[in-house]
């Protein structure tokens, strides 16, 4: 089992490595999307009332919102939601990948894990951009978090 810090392939934190394994073992794309739909339910959902211009992820085909914070142990914690379940599933995976990390670790985290999950058509050029925009926003917000700390 992998216990890396997310620098790239082969270096994923445990929770993420488990999700990747589940995905790669899925029978086909249909099953993988079904898993995404399920994961979407498990995110710490950002309720509609908290969706603002500040939380919005741009360049995404769906309306997606994220907010970063710290959990009770002072580790990184991501909340998010999207009108698309699939996008929300990707947010959920990201959240679980980054949960509890330090801000420095978050900023160094590679987005390449999605490529390993076999979600090629969910990660269409457009959609992939959406994911990458989301991931970039997470890192930017994480940096602000650090600012708050220091």
């Amino acid at each position: 089992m992998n216990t890396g810090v997310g620098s790239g392939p082969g270096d994923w934190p445990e929770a993420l490595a488990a999700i990747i394994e589940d995905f790669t073992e899925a029978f086909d794309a249909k099953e993988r999307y079904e898993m995404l739909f399920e994961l979407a339910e498990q995110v710490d959902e950002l309720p509609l009332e908290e969706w603002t211009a500040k939380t919005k992820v741009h360049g995404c085909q769906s309306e997606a919102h994220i907010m970063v914070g710290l959990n009770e142990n002072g580790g990184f914690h991501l909340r998010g939601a999207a009108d698309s379940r699939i996008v929300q599933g990707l947010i959920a995976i990201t959240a679980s990948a980054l949960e509890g990390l330090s801000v420095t670790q978050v900023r160094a985290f590679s987005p390449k894990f999605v490529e390993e999950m076999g979600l090629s058509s969910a990660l269409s050029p457009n959609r992939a951009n959406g994911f990458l925009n989301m991931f970039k926003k997470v890192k930017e917000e994480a940096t602000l978090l650090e600012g708050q700390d220091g």
Partner: protein
Amino acid sequence: MLDVNAARKDFPILKREMAGGRPLVYLDNSATTQKPQQVIDAMSSYYRTSNSNVHRSAHTLAEEATIGFEESREKIRNWFGAGESRVVFTSGTTEAINLVAQSWAKVNLNEGDVVVLTEMEHHADIVPWQMLTSEIGVELRWVPFDLETFELDMGAYEVAVQGASLVGAVHTSNVLGVRNPVEQMVELAHQAGAKVLIDAAQAAPHDRIGFDSLGADFLALSAHKMGGPTGIGVLLINEVAFQQMQPFMGGGDMIREVHFDYSTYQENEHRFEAGTPRIAEAIGWGAAIDWLAKWNVESIHEHGLELARFTADSLRSIPGMRVFGRQADGDGAVVSFLHDTMHANDLAVMLDAQGFAVRTGHHCAQPLLRRFDIAATNRASFWLYNTLEEASAFVEATRDICQRYS
């Protein structure tokens, strides 16, 4: 009756296996149709045996290429009943409409002149006119449609054309499938002294258009939506309007003489076809027309409409599903739909994972969608190779996805 299975055999892509070994069910024909092997072969064969630049040269390949290219023009002229009109090749419907805007409207209209458009137009028949409002100050008048019946408000149309110079109207909507009463629209426009441009991109694959008998002044369409290749389309132009047009782009092939201080232009269609033409594309399109001629266009139309009606009716029975369109006689083989709670993209991705290709988004008709207060629909659209089994499998997959995930 259309022999759908015989038609299917000519399309190699329909044999393709998708994710999980599922067959491809291609329901995105309004975006672009698939190409029969005959079209692919015609282009390959051109490149393998006769490829050459056309016009003004004395060698055999150049002759063959020129003949092939110009023969395709005649095939297109005949197929669309434009024997007394002009056939100008463009890169597609979009360029054809821009050509009307730049070569006819900009030259013949003045500030304050009115262009009438319908609220059903594709962006291709909106943006060129908006550009002209800033360039020369024409005014746009919009003709609404009924949100329940999806029909153009012909009362409003009749009022709008009064004093107008040009009408731009979609023959068959790529979102609603609604076929507009273009004959009546042409008549009313002409009575009011306005010219008429018909966007026939969606009608071309399903209808037999008679340009001369319809009497419109301009008609635009794309090869790629009727079995032909990408990169080519046409503007059909009534002779009177043709004579009022000025060249759009300058360069080779469209000139007669070029001097340092002035140039003169060709007087036939070449006047509007600057540069090396789309030779292989024209030849491929000609082959598509030869291929289409083997089938009965009326039965292609009926077949598509039958699938669209079945699909629309079946989708309506899915809880939370809204269907846009009426699927009346003459309408296109298009069904747009949107579920209350299932995100259009999620539905499309789940369908794709099962081999169903549908289009999702604004279909380049944002103003139309905004009238319904929505930003996207899913859209299934059919052509002659689609079967009732495919439509039915598609509906069941959609029902299943909506039930489980919405």
